[in-house]
């Protein structure tokens, strides 16, 4: 499917999108004024975004509300026209080669469905097969695969409007992959799903990425999605890229908090802890500490705890993406 040679599969350079928004003053007078003398604000939803993505990568695209994530995805999908900048996916320009481009692309918006609301699920798939010209054998093979992984035949003949949210998301994911796209964009795909459904969804995305070598870009406010499935992270805020690199390195570099759960022997003598350590919880001889690694390292901590008593067991949990991003978002604000 990748016909772009040795170049990255997705190339985004200096992408910019400005929206013109009517500014209205509050109250009736403001509304009347806006009617006869409209004043527009120009909002830069995406300022200057550049990145490349190679074939088979699974990239998390994150940022706070209004950072420009969905706008970027919609531009990359060929729905929104950029004010400036270039997008090439599979060597194609989404706006010049619209039809060819759309045939190789799968997009799933968690908050919107591409299925026909009033008709059974099967009818939407029947239409999608015709739209994407999926060969009958391939179509059947894909349906069997999605039934095996997503259980779509359980609600195959139900009208879409009668599906539960979880069923609808499963059907929409299968619909976005029915034509074997080489690139898949997922915009808030797990919104509203329960823990179990989210877990299943993540497993499937990883599986599709590995088995089909589908290049996936995912945005999600549930950072568990990103942390569990993505290898690479692109962080944007106010329309600009703040970080682009390996997810693990990002967490290791920016996470300063570690949770340490220690179980002591029978005799414990509580002594003074080094600065940067706080006790979160005590349960008998088990203590839970939080370390700020900017103030204290593990060596100092273990030396201090050695004077408390015999260490019987120890669990350490380093920071999560959520913790890191919460702090970064706060700093940026």
């Amino acid at each position, binding site marked *: 499917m990748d016909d772009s040679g040795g170049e990255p599969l997705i190339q985004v350079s200096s992408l910019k999108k400005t929206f013109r928004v009517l500014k209205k003053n509050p109250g009736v007078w403001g509304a009347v004024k806006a009617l006869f003398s409209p004043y527009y604000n120009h909002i830069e939803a995406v300022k200057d975004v550049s990145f490349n993505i190679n074939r088979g990568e699974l990239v998390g695209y994150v940022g706070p509300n209004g950072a420009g*994530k969905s706008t970027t995805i919609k531009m990359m999908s*060929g*729905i929104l026209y950029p004010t400036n900048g270039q997008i090439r996916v599979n060597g194609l320009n989404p706006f010049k080669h619209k039809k060819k481009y*759309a045939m190789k*692309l799968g997009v799933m918006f968690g908050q919107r469905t591409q299925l026909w609301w009033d008709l059974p699920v099967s*009818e939407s798939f029947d239409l999608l097969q015709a*739209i994407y010209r999926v060969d009958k054998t391939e179509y059947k093979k894909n349906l069997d695969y999605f039934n095996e992984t997503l259980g779509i035949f359980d609600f195959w003949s139900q*009208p879409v409007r009668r599906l539960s949210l979880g069923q609808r998301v499963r059907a929409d994911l299968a619909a976005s992959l029915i034509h074997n796209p080489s690139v898949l964009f997922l915009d808030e795909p797990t919104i509203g799903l329960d823990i179990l459904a989210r877990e299943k969804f993540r497993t499937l995305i990883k599986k599709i990425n590995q088995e089909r070598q589908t290049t996936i870009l995912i945005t999600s406010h549930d950072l568990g999605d990103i942390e569990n499935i993505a290898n690479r992270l692109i962080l944007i805020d106010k329309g600009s890229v703040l970080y682009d690199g390996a997810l693990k390195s990002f967490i290791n570099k920016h996470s300063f908090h570690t949770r340490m759960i220690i179980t002591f022997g029978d005799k414990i003598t509580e002594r003074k802890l080094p600065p940067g350590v706080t006790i979160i919880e005590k349960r008998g001889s088990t203590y839970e500490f939080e370390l700020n690694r900017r103030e204290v390292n593990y060596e100092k901590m273990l030396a201090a705890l050695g004077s408390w008593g015999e260490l019987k067991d120890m669990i350490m949990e380093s920071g999560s993406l959520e913790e890191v991003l919460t702090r970064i978002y706060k700093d940026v604000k």
Partner: protein
Amino acid sequence: MIVFWKWTIKSFQRNMAYRLEYFVSLLNALLYMFIFTSIWGAVFVEGQTKNGLTRELMINYAIFATLIKVTVVKTRDFIGQRVRTGEIAVDLLKPFSLPMMTLADAVGSWIFQIFSRGIPLIALAIYFFEISPPKGFDIEFLLSYVFSFFIFHGLLFMFGVASFYITDNFPLWLLNSSAVSLLSGSILPLQILPESVQKFAIFTPYPYLFYLPSMKLLRDDFPFEYALLRQVLVIVIIYFIGFVMYRYGKTRLHIQGG
């Protein structure tokens, strides 16, 4: 072409999904016929002629104009509604053009209306109003009727695409509905309107919607020369404007939620 017809069939199926809506709209069309036949029956005395219109002609006009209208008019604003909800995003993703998608959707609804409303209403009209087959039912009428569908869809597409520029196209939609009611001949034949309105109307696409095919159906002496050609010209103009609006509109489209 396969995609077009599949889409048309899905649209037809979707129209069948709501039984209550179907029966209510059928009843509504029948009431509409009763109201207008009663009005014209009261306004025109038997044997009286006004502006070349007779009581019998007006009653028949009310029935046939309603029949044409209920089969052609589509009340759903496909594009405008989807722009307001942001669902247009999923339509624009598909390797199938939006204008063709809206046309296929409209053709599906149209075929559904003909079978589900048109035919039962003809049967009901024969039973309740004892109408006889109109004199002007021929190939020219059928062509004129098909052209009315395309004019209506062209207008719908044009006003729908306007939502790419202004997001909420409801005021334009309302304006179009009012213009259809007044100038299309769905309620009043054009010659009943004041002369100044008639002169204005012929420069709009509306009289070519229902007035022309209804008159063709009912009057032998109706000057139908070049009428089909004029309808084609209206279709070309409306679609041209619609496509230009669509081409530029999609570059400035805003989609709800980024």
